[in-house]
C-alpha cells in the first residue's frame, strides 16, 4: 500500500484528509509541522505528501526545500494543500519542487482529481 504523509497543523484537516485518502487506498501517516514531517521522511520516505503551507516550527515551503535536498527526497509526490491561493505562492511552490497544488477549501473530488493528475490514483 502506498503511504501518504499528511502534514498540517490542524488536527481537523488531518482527520478529513486521512478519511478521503484512506478511501483512495493510502496508508496514512501524520505530522503537525515541517520538522516533524522531515524527521518522519528520514526514517521512512512516503510515496506521497499532502502539505500545508503555514505551520509552526517549520513551514511547508521550507520543509519542501529541505526534503528535496535529502537523499531520496525527490521520490515523494508532493501536493500542496493550503489557503495560500494566489499565483505567486503557487509558482513559488512549483519552483521548490511541488508536483501539484490544492487551494483550500478542498473536498474529495478535488483531492481525487489532483492525485490522479500526478498519477497517484
Amino acid at each position, binding site marked *: 500500500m502506498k503511504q501518504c504523509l499528511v502534514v498540517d497543523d490542524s488536527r481537523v484537516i488531518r482527520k478529513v484528509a486521512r478519511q478521503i485518502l484512506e478511501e483512495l487506498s493510502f496508508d496514512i501517516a501524520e505530522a503537525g509541522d515541517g520538522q516533524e514531517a522531515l524527521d518522519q521522511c528520514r526514517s521512512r520516505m512516503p510515496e506521497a505528501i499532502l502539505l500545508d503551507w503555514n505551520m509552526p516550527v517549520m513551514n511547508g515551503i521550507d520543509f519542501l526545500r529541505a526534503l528535496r535536498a535529502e537523499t531520496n527526497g525527490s521520490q515523494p509526490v508532493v501536493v500542496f494543500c493550503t489557503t495560500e*491561493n*494566489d*499565483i505567486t505562492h*503557487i*509558482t513559488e511552490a*512549483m519552483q521548490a519542487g511541488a508536483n*501539484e*497544488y*490544492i*487551494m483550500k477549501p*478542498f473536498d474529495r*473530488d*478535488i483531492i481525487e*482529481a*489532483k492525485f*490522479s*493528475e500526478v498519477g497517484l490514483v
Partner: protein
Amino acid sequence: MTPSDFQFLADLVKQRSGIVLSEEKGYLVDSRLNPVARQNGLADLDELVAKLRVASIGPLADAVLEAMTTNESFFFRDKTPFDNFEKHILPTFAENRATKKLRIWCAAASSGQEPYSLAMLLKEKEGTADAWQADIIGTDISKDILEKAKAGLYSQFEVQRGLPIQLLVKYFKQDGEVWAIDPAIRAKVIYKYFNLLDSFAALGKFDVVFCRNVLIYFDQETKKEIFEKIAKVMPPDGFLLLGASETTIGLTERFKPVKGHRGLYALDGGETTKSVTAPNQMKAAAS
C-alpha cells in the same frame, strides 16, 4: 404535481431538447422548476404548468428547458478522450493528411471546459513540429451556459478539477476567487447556440466531434438519429468521442469503436487500422 402535469412537462422537455424525464426524476423537476416558478411570479408548479399549457412556446418554456439541462463539466474530463485526441487522432491525421488543419466540434460544450481544454492542449504544441491549426466550435442548447463559456470565468473549485496546476498558472489570470482564462485561449473557441435535434445541414464538416455526456439524457431513437447526423458531417477519416458511459454499439452501424481507445469511434470503413500507441495500455503496463 399531478401525474398528468408531470407528463405534460416531460413531453415538452423531450420534444424541445430530447432530454428524457422519467418518473424517478420527479425530484429533479421539483427542485429545478420551483425556482423558475418563483422567478416568474407563479405560486407553484401547478400554476407553472397551467401557464405552459396555454403558451408552450416563449420565455417561460425556454426557462423550463434551461433549468432541465444538466451542465456539469470539468477541464480534461476523464482524461482518456484528451489522450486519445493527442496520441491517436493527431498522429493518425499527421500521417494520412496533407495539411495540418482541423475543425473540431464540441457538440455539448456546456460551460466551456471541454473546448478550452482542447485549445490549451493545442496551444502547448504551437511552435513545435506537432502544431495544428484548429477551429474549435462549441455549441449547446443552453444559452445561459454558453454565456458562461464565452466569459471564460471559473471558480476556484472549477479550476481544481482536472486542470493541471501548470496549465492553471500558464493560462489563467486570478481575480480573487475568480479565474479568467487567457484571452488568447478564449479566442480559439467559437461558441454558438445549437440544438442537437435540429438539422446539421448548415454546420459544415468536422474532423473531430466531441459529443460527450449529453446522449445519456436521450432515448435510443434520438441517439440513433444523432449518430446518423454526426456521421454525415464527418469526412471518412473523422473521429467521434463519447462520454465514459456512452456507446454507439447496438445503436448504429455507422461508427465502430477504435480498438484499445476507450470512448473513441471512427466511421465504419473510414479509419486506417494501424497501431499507434494506446494510452490506456501504456498506463496499464506502467502501473
